[in-house]
């Protein structure tokens, strides 16, 4: 019990530390704001062009699609787990040694860091949300139950995705080369998370593929709940499915890490 209290206290401290690291680089905030606004504008004009000659695509109106796309952009940090490049960098620089020397569960420490980082990124998305509302007419859901269902789903989806990325990042212990894998996963995540195209617009077979891998759990699934594309009544089933993803991915990633960590080499003396 004492050990659990101690670990929780450490995790809380790590959680509080990450925002301070974030604040160290204020310039990125402004660059991110400009780039995200441009990206969002491109998507809005693209979807308006798609709907130029039709009222609905895959039973979604233009307004529904735009609401989904804009919310998916605002909550994009849910998919922004950067473990592959992070592991690769720390292995190449030899910094991995200090993470492994901490008297705390390595995966737990990273999860808390990423969760804290997610909170910061979401807070930093507020200006994007304002831009989406004022410039692109985003209509926000108002039902608190919908927001509650979304919050639970988003946390579960993010956690499942974290463990999935952890599993992939452990491959870098064997390859020590991360660029190719990192870019591949980023590209897959961008498309298969549903942040560019709602899942319902994808062909049936692709939807099956997308729902068989965890990317969509962090964006498409929670944002579909938020926009009403998935009815609120289905929320418990959605959560259960996501919980199964979390459990499965946690087991696989933790087991793989135990094996992969034996392969660690620390570069540079």
């Amino acid at each position, binding site marked *: 019990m004492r050990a659990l209290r*101690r670990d929780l*206290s*450490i995790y809380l*401290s*790590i959680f509080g*530390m990450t925002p*301070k*690291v974030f604040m*160290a*680089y204020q310039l990125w905030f402004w660059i991110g704001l400009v780039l995200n606004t441009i990206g969002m504008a491109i998507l809005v004009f693209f979807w308006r062009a798609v709907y130029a000659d039709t009222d609905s695509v895959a039973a979604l109106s233009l307004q529904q699609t735009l609401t989904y796309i804009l919310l998916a952009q605002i909550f994009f940090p849910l998919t922004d787990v950067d473990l592959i490049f992070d592991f690769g960098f720390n292995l190449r*620089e*030899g*910094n*991995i*040694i*200090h993470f*492994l*020397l*901490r*008297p*705390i*569960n390595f995966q737990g420490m990273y999860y808390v860091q990423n969760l804290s980082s997610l909170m910061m990124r979401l807070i930093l998305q507020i200006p994007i949300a304002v831009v989406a509302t004022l410039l692109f007419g985003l209509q926000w859901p108002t039902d608190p139950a919908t927001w509650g269902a979304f919050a639970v789903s988003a946390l579960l989806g993010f956690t499942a995705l974290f463990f999935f990325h952890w599993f992939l990042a452990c491959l870098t212990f064997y390859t020590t080369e991360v660029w190719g894998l990192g870019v591949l996963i980023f590209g897959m995540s961008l498309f298969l998370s549903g942040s560019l195209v709602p899942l319902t617009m994808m062909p049936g077979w692709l939807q099956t593929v997308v729902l068989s891998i965890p990317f969509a759990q962090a964006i498409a699934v929670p944002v579909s709940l938020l926009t009403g594309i998935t009815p609120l009544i289905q929320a418990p089933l959605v959560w259960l499915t996501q919980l199964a993803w979390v459990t499965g991915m946690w087991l696989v990633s933790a087991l793989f890490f135990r094996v992969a*960590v*034996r392969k*660690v*080499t*620390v570069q*540079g*003396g």
Partner: protein
Amino acid sequence: MSVIEVENLTKVFKIPQKDPGLGGAIKGLFAPRFQSKTAVDRINFRLDRGEIVGYIGVNGAGKSTTIKMLTGVLMPTGGSIRVLGRDPHRQRIDNAREIGVVFGQRTQLWWDLALIESLNLIARMYDVPPARYKQMLDEFSQTLDLGSLLKVPVRNMSLGQKMRSELAAALIHEPKVVYLDEPTIGLDLIVKERIRDFIKAECGSKGMTVMLTTHDLGDIEQLCRRVIIIDEGRVIYDGPIETIKKKFGKFREITFETTGLVPSLSLPPGCELLSTGDRKVTLRFDRIQTTASQVASAVMKQIEVRDFSLSEPDLANIVKQIYNGALDNGGVEPEAADARPAP
């Protein structure tokens, strides 16, 4: 019971072999080739409580690999390690609670945050009681002169300031075992002295077992009574530093830069001329027969000196001489466990 017990410890790395050019890269994809490199080769030693042991060798000798296995980060290919009765790799987290580590070439502190933030978190991680933490922080602020650094982000620190901060981070939880991997690398003489004094006082007074790797024989001379020399992954000497000092440490070289041409010099006993050049002269002296100041004084009386520098015996040269049997008559066999001095 020894604090650290190492038996037949071996680490073999598999290094990928790549042919040059695009063809080589493609070939490597389909038929990767590896070469085995034995970094640590069946080494044995034991360290008792309170011992400060120098673990030295030339670059690539296997020092850092040994330390990384002792900390539990690397898994040995063969042999066994017990640190405070634990297997460091299998019980990595439990082992981590009892050890402190400084790697001179990398930082364990949070780069973008003020030092105090890192220390706070480290103290929390190691479960240091708040009152004790405050006491340690006050102590380190004095001994390591950290007071003015506590609010400075690590990335804004000089090398010497960083190393003082690293030592505080490694020792704030008063570990039983401390690994110092080149803690004085790149530091100037004054900072080196300060860090040596700190290590001696802090680790000595608390009975910490310290394993120190360094290329600086001055570190070893001032801190250690026992030294283990490793070369190509094998222990070639394990015994008192005195033996090494007597055999190899009695000579120093001193080089003078002069304002004019160097005439023939009259030198004190135990001092000989090694080389002369244009406005430069290098002498070697026996430290038992004379001192650096006597040599410097004698030379300065005869010529005008612009600058001078002292150099330690070269480690690579010592290793070479040990291989050539320099210690054969010294009565110390490599890996002789009973040759260890009492802590």
